[in-house]
């Protein structure tokens, strides 16, 4: 097989993909290529168009314009075929409250046309995978938020999908549960599945994503590996300086090649000359600071700004 850009090289291949609601464009002429294998991140502030993009990929929202192929098949025409090979962990859990944990997997498997005998060993394995074996007979209303999320992940795997779509999978979960879910997701990657992840936790994206795009207002504004983006979009070092903004400004005016951003009583200083900045700040008695390496969150804030989104 050649490495040319044929449709089959990509799980998802979108060209000039657009979606508008009542004249308001939510996704604007997006070009997106998601390769097979690994974890692909779709990052962006609220309202960036992430969920709308996922809905188009799942055939839950017809594109307004442009072209979208999933597994090399035209969407939305191929919706039913495409969905047989996708697993979805939705942003809000929509487990079936009328059933127990194991029944949820059973019923959901039925929607894929899977029979009881096909499902029995899968349910067994998946409940072990997400550590819910002891809860097999528990009703959904008796589960904690973390357990529901894990069950949602198990449910997304019931059809042994090639592509797993995760829409903010760890939002609202405590650190223990998040780490455990990350471990599960890495295992899925190793098992050869393709993961498509939306998140606004940059830490999550940095840990899991092999490649990602940053979206804002319906447009892809950056793409690459997390390391590439950190290298290309922001200087190596960040200082979070606490103290009067004007004072910090004048202090650091002696250093060249740095970018300052004042937010309340904190001034963010992006620089590639850390040693110089340390010297200046150490000499000042009326400011305190935190020095760290630049991370994906800095990239994100640099690209999408610090304004609040709805």
């Amino acid at each position, binding site marked *: 097989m050649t490495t040319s850009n044929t449709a089959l090289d990509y799980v998802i291949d979108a060209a000039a993909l657009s979606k508008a609601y009542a004249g308001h464009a939510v996704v604007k002429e997006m070009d997106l290529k998601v390769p097979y294998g690994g974890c692909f991140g779709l990052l962006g502030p609220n309202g960036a168009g992430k969920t709308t993009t996922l809905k188009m990929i799942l055939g839950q*929202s017809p594109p307004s*314009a442009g072209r979208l192929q999933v597994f090399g098949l035209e969407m939305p025409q191929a919706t039913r075929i495409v969905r047989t090979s*996708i697993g979805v962990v939705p942003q809000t859990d929509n487990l*079936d409250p009328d059933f127990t944990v194991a029944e949820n997997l059973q*019923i959901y498997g039925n*929607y894929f*046309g899977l029979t009881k005998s096909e499902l029995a060993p899968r349910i067994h394995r998946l409940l072990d995978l997400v550590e819910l074996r002891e809860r097999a007979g528990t009703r959904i209303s008796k589960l904690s938020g973390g357990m529901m999320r894990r069950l949602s992940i198990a449910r997304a795997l019931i059809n042994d999908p090639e592509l797993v779509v995760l829409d903010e999978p760890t939002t609202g979960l405590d650190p223990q549960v998040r780490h455990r879910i990350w471990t599960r997701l890495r295992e899925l990657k190793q098992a050869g599945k393709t993961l498509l992840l939306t998140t606004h936790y940059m830490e999550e994206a940095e840990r899991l994503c092999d490649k990602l795009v940053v979206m804002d207002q319906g447009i892809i504004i950056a793409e690459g590996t997390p390391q590439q983006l950190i290298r290309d979009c922001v200087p190596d070092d960040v200082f979070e300086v606490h103290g009067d903004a004007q004072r910090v400004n004048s202090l650091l005016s002696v250093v060249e090649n740095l970018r300052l951003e004042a937010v309340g009583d904190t001034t963010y200083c992006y620089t590639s000359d850390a040693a110089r900045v340390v010297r200046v700040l150490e000499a000042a008695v009326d400011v305190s600071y935190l020095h760290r390496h630049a991370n994906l969150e800095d990239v994100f804030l640099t690209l999408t700004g610090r304004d609040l989104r709805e």
Partner: protein
Amino acid sequence: MSASLSYSKTTDWRLPRLRRGALAVWRRNALVWRKLMGASILINFGEPFVYLLGLGFGLGHFIGDMAGMPYLTFLASGLVASSAMNTASFEAMYSVYTRMVPQRTYDAMLATPLDVDDIAAGEMLWSASKGLISSSSILIVSVLLGAVTEWTALWAVPVLWLVGLCFAGPALVMSALSPSYEFFSYYFTLVVTPMFIFSGVFYPIATLPAMLQAAVQILPLTHAIALIRPLVSGQPVTQVALHLAVLCAYALVCYYIAVVLIRRRLIV
């Protein structure tokens, strides 16, 4: 590449296709029902007992015969038909809305190969099944009370399922349009209750003024009763094709409208 920039909400008018997926939806609902069977059976049998005992024996005492049969039989046959209407309507509104909106059951289904066509068909089949369960319960109670003695009453069973299907259709349309549960009380008050009163459950429609008689011919319950009553009481059934056609037409046309509306609501 031609990008046709039609940035407006489009309606998917394509005809729905019936597939096996509808059975998975039906099965889901049946499994939930089985879990709660005890309570619902009690209600299914308890309510008709009260109706038939109270109205049938009470009023029947004064009325005697009506349309060539004991009033208890007349009333029982009407209630059997209207029960299929009530139960199917209720299920296709309150339960469907619950699954569609607060429970997000359909959102979950729409991440599987099921589509709106399957979901709507499954819900209609299930609503009809529930209508059949409750109307058959009344039929059994009527047999126990001696109001129904004819074997032809068994023919009413498949017809009752069709009656349920016929009423599930418009109810599903209401669900697709409804912004909240309150919306359904309008439908019950303005549509279901008048039908219950005017379509011949309690008295023959022949007693209505001529204009009303013509008007009730468009109501599906009138046709349901026109089939069910003779079957239950052992009288000859007339105009079978017409009555069946009306029931089928309501079911099919409303199924199509419901599918289009639910697509508009969920596939956006």
